[in-house]
Each structure stands twice: as C-alpha cells, then as structure tokens.
C-alpha cells in the first residue's frame, strides 16, 4: 500500500488538535479581590494569608474584648498607656510581614476601642535601639519589660506564633499556634492570654 498523504478532513482534525496546545499559557488576567471575593478564598501556600490573619485576629481580639483586663481599662482614668511589641516567629515559615500586619491590626483595634493610649511603633523602634545598641537593634523579648518602662507604658501586648511543620511523601502540613499576651510592665504579670490555631497543608 502506498503511503497516503493526509486528506483535508484529517488536516483539519490535526490543526484542531494542535492549535489549542500551541495557545496554552497565553494571557493571564489580573483580578481585583473586591470584584471577585473568591480570590482570597484559595490558599496558595502553607504561609499565612489575609484570610488566616483575619480569622486568627477575630478570635483573639474577641477574647480580649470580654477579658477582665479590658474591663479594667474601660474604667481606668486617665487611660493606661499600652505598647505593642513584635510577635516572635518560631515557625518554619517566613511570616514576618504577616506578623507585622497582625501588629498593625491589633493597634488599629485598640485605638478604635478608645480605652487605652497606644505608644507609636516608631518610638518603640527608637527605644529598642537605645536598649540593644545601634548595631544589633533587634527586639529582644527578654528585655520587653525594660522597653515598656522606658516608654512609660503600663502594659505591653506581645505574643508569638509557633508552628508544627510535618512532611510526608504526599503532604506537607503546617499547624500554627498564635498566642497573644497582655503583660503588666511593673509586675510582669500576664493579664491576658489567648491562643488561636490555623492549619495549612499542601496535598
């Protein structure tokens, strides 16, 4: 049998098969979260995203809202001064920017509650530089009370995020535990502590 070339119909089928393969990957669309809320709903990695932060903060701040220390603040005159110190990251993910967001959100929430005065974060940075020295001006949790005293704060809010990161052949799971504390600068007494949990996985 002689080798036959393709008929017009076969050629059409070949093109129909081949063209979609060639155009694959062309054209990405930029989406605005406000127009399409589902953009925020999908988890893209085992890091912390906006949805995780929102959920964790809502839980924690709701607990703070009804806590005894908050009730005390409501009735204290003049309003007590509160400093907000960085949260420690003891996880296996680089979540520093997420932790910064948590601090800013907590700061906003406190200011809006109108029951305390909040020390500006810039002043805190200066104070950390003063205590730790210029070359290594990094927040040291062991010196938190010292910073608080020098800032004239009665309380400071701090916390940490710890994590449990596990890997199997077909899955990676990170369990986050976010702790928030309110500490009395004078006595170092923990006046409030709350924990919220977040789990992220790739499978």
């Amino acid at each position: 049998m002689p080798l036959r070339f393709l008929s017009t119909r076969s050629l059409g089928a070949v093109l129909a098969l081949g063209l979609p393969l060639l155009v694959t990957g062309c054209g990405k669309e930029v989406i605005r979260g406000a127009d399409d809320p589902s953009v925020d709903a999908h988890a893209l990695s085992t890091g912390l995203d906006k949805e995780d932060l929102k959920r964790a903060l809502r839980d924690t701040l709701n607990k703070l809202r009804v806590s005894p220390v908050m009730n005390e603040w409501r009735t204290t005159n003049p309003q007590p001064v509160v400093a907000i110190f960085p949260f420690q990251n003891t996880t296996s993910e680089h979540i520093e920017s997420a932790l910064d967001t948590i601090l800013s959100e907590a700061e906003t929430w406190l200011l809006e509650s109108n029951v305390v005065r909040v020390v500006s974060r810039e002043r805190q940075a200066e104070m950390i530089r003063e205590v730790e020295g210029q070359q290594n001006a990094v927040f040291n949790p062991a010196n938190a009370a010292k910073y608080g005293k020098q800032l004239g704060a009665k309380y400071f809010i701090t916390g940490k995020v710890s994590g449990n990161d596990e890997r199997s052949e077909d899955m990676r799971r990170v369990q986050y535990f976010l702790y928030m504390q309110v500490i009395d600068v004078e006595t170092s007494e923990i006046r409030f502590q709350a924990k919220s949990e977040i789990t992220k996985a790739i499978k």
Partner: protein
Amino acid sequence: MRDVLVRVASAAALVIAPWLVGCGGHEARTLKMRTALDAGDAKGAIKALNEEMDVGSDKELPKDIMGDNALLVLDRGSIQQSLARFDLSKQDFEAADKAIDMLDLAHNAGDSIGEYVFSGSSGKYRAPPYEKLMINTLDMLNYLEQGDLNGARVEARRLSVIHRYYRDTLKQPDNPVLGLGSLLAGFTFEKSNETDEALRYYDEALQFAGFRAIEGPVARLAAQGSYRSPRIKALLEKEPASVNPDDGEILFVVGYGRVPHKIGERIPIGLALTLYADAISPADRVAANKLALQGLVTWINFPTLAPAKGKYAVPTVRLDDRYVQLEEAVDVDREVRAEWKKIEGKIIVSAITRMIARFAVGQGIQAAAGKDSVGGLLASLAAQATLTALDTPDTRSWETLPARIAIARVRVPPGRHRVLLDARGWQRSQELVIQKGGWAVVSLMALR
C-alpha cells in the same frame, strides 16, 4: 482500518513535529549561563537566566515557577549569593524552595509512566535529597550574612523538617551535606542564646566530618547547656582552651567550583548493553538484544554526569595580616556522584524500556499497514524516529551548587578587621566591625 492507523500515525507525526524543534533539554537552557560562569561573568550568567525565564529584571520571578523554571530560579539564587546580593538570593531560594517542594508532592504514577514510555524528562522534577537540604542551608547563609538570626532560625527549622522527612519517612540515612547545614543552624541558635538547641545541631554536624573548627566553641558552649550526647561528652572531657570573653567571632564559608551537571547521551543499544549490562534485568536484556540484532532506530537516550568544575582548587582566606586555615565542610560533588550511582541503573532501564516501547509502536504501524507495505515501513520508521527525537534525556539538576565548601571559625578582638576571600580567581574583600562579643559570617561562592 489499516488506512486509519497509517493516517493517525502521520497525523501524530505532524502534530508532534513542532515540538521536535528546540527540544535540547534542560542542559541546553543553561548552556549560556554555564559559559558565562566559566568566564567568571556572574552578571552575564544572571542575564542569560533572565532571558531563558523570560523575565525583565533580576527581581522578577517567572510567571510559571511550578515547573522546570524552579531550577533556573535556584541557579539565579546561587549566583546572586556569589555576588553578595543576599536579598535577591533569598527571594529566589525561597520561591524555588516552595516550588520544588510542590513539584515533589505533585509527582505521581503518571510521571513515572511517562518516564518509562515517552521521555526521561516528561515527569515533574524530583529534587534529590542533597539539593533540598542545600536550599535551606545556603539560604540560612544569606540570613547569617545579614546578621538576621530570626530568618536564619526559620531556615534552620525548614532544614530540620526536610531532614526528618528523609530520615523517618523515606528511611534514608543522614546525608553528608547536612553537616554544613547543622553547623550553620548550631551557630544560628548559639548566637540566639538558645544553647541546647545549638548543641543539638552541633552534635548533628559533628557526626559528619571532623569540624575541628567548632570543637572548642562547642565544648565551651556545652558547659553552659544541658544537652548531652556521646560526642558532646567526649568534647567536654577535653579541656577547651580559655578565651577572652570580649572577643568576637567570624565564621568564614567558602564554596568553590561547580557540581557536575547532567548531559544527554545517545548511544546504540548494542553499546548500552555492553556498558550497562549489570544494571539491566535478564528479561530486559533478552528483549533489548533482540532489538540490537535488528539494527533499526535502536538508540537509547539517557542522561549522564559531565565533569565537575574546579573541585581541586585551593581557596584562601586572609584576615588582617594573616591567613586563616580552612577546613572542608562538605564535598557536594562527591554527594552528587554517590546519588547518581544509586539511580543510574534505573535510568538506563527506563531508557531501554522507552526504546522497546518505540519499537512496539513502529511494529504496530507496520502490522496495520501490512507486512510488505513500503508506506507502512516508512510510517513505522518515521514514528520511531519522531519518538526517538522526542525522547529528551532528563538533564535537570541544580547546576550552580559549589563542588566543595570549606569553613573556618576564628576569634578576633573587637574592632575593625579586613578580610579577603579568594577562590578560583573570584575575590571578596570587606571591612568588618566586630563589637565586643559580636559575630559575623562572611562567605564566598566562587562558582567557576
């Protein structure tokens, strides 16, 4: 029916034809980068990678990183580190780390079947253990260079997660490249004042090599902590030399040369059977011998290792007016070869399996067209030749890992110090200010 099969074969050849162009495999994508590095032109190497990834700047990540581009991002991260651009290196290593992990988790049976039937590089990339461990190790070095202990601790923890996975889940014994990672992790936790955690990591490091450079510091640290192991106890029994507590410390890390990259080989089946007889099962050998005797389109495509670069160089470190003695921390080149030895047999077998599959396709077309059909014979040969050309050897690997890494840890009085690191004609010169009890990490990655 025969008509239909011959037409389908012709149609398939036409559809596949465009992909025949430019199927040079991963090694072809990195050729310009390697050439630039060989010439000592690190910036040229980054430019070549950016072009290959189709990105406009050194900061930009490729649109699709969840594929083989992840390896190019890793290469760029290594070269950025060699240029002391630690922020850019961190960005690349961390993006590639996630992508490589995602690829590993997504690897499935379909990928393995593709590797045995279609092409060695058809499946998703699976990084060997030393590559995964080195990502976190080298990224930890980036953070230490910048004095960022928080970031370094995160990388140390990530390293431990992967280490535990290999040790506990895959039952793979400890990998020698872990020695360097554990040493850096120990240093990170020591300088973070987490003594027992530091000792645990140092204990891991001490099992891999001599690491004489850390014996004294570990013995002094052990006296302040409670973690004990036979190795730590043995160090405590030796009397560590007393030191001035005001002194600072500098940790030098010098990587030099490049590990062997993979290159594609295409050899006749007869030669493959001679060279790799030990790696092939008796049944496969019989089938392959049958094909070898027929002598038609019976080539096998498989990857192999190219020679390493510069692993026998002698790096030097000069601190103020004296030379510092370096000690080998890890021979990455040796680990690459050891890992390759473990999988070489499987790779040859899969290449022969693919060749047998190609032959079977050809036979099917010939049978459909009729035993004596010239057209059928041509279609059969065309299909086999097409599939042979499409069978791209899997040459994917992290090509810019240094062949060897050496370390030194020295105590210095507080104040200004000038350091000069040199390896294979690459130099880094820097002035450091060490505070009382302070520390610094200085590295050089001479990827030539």
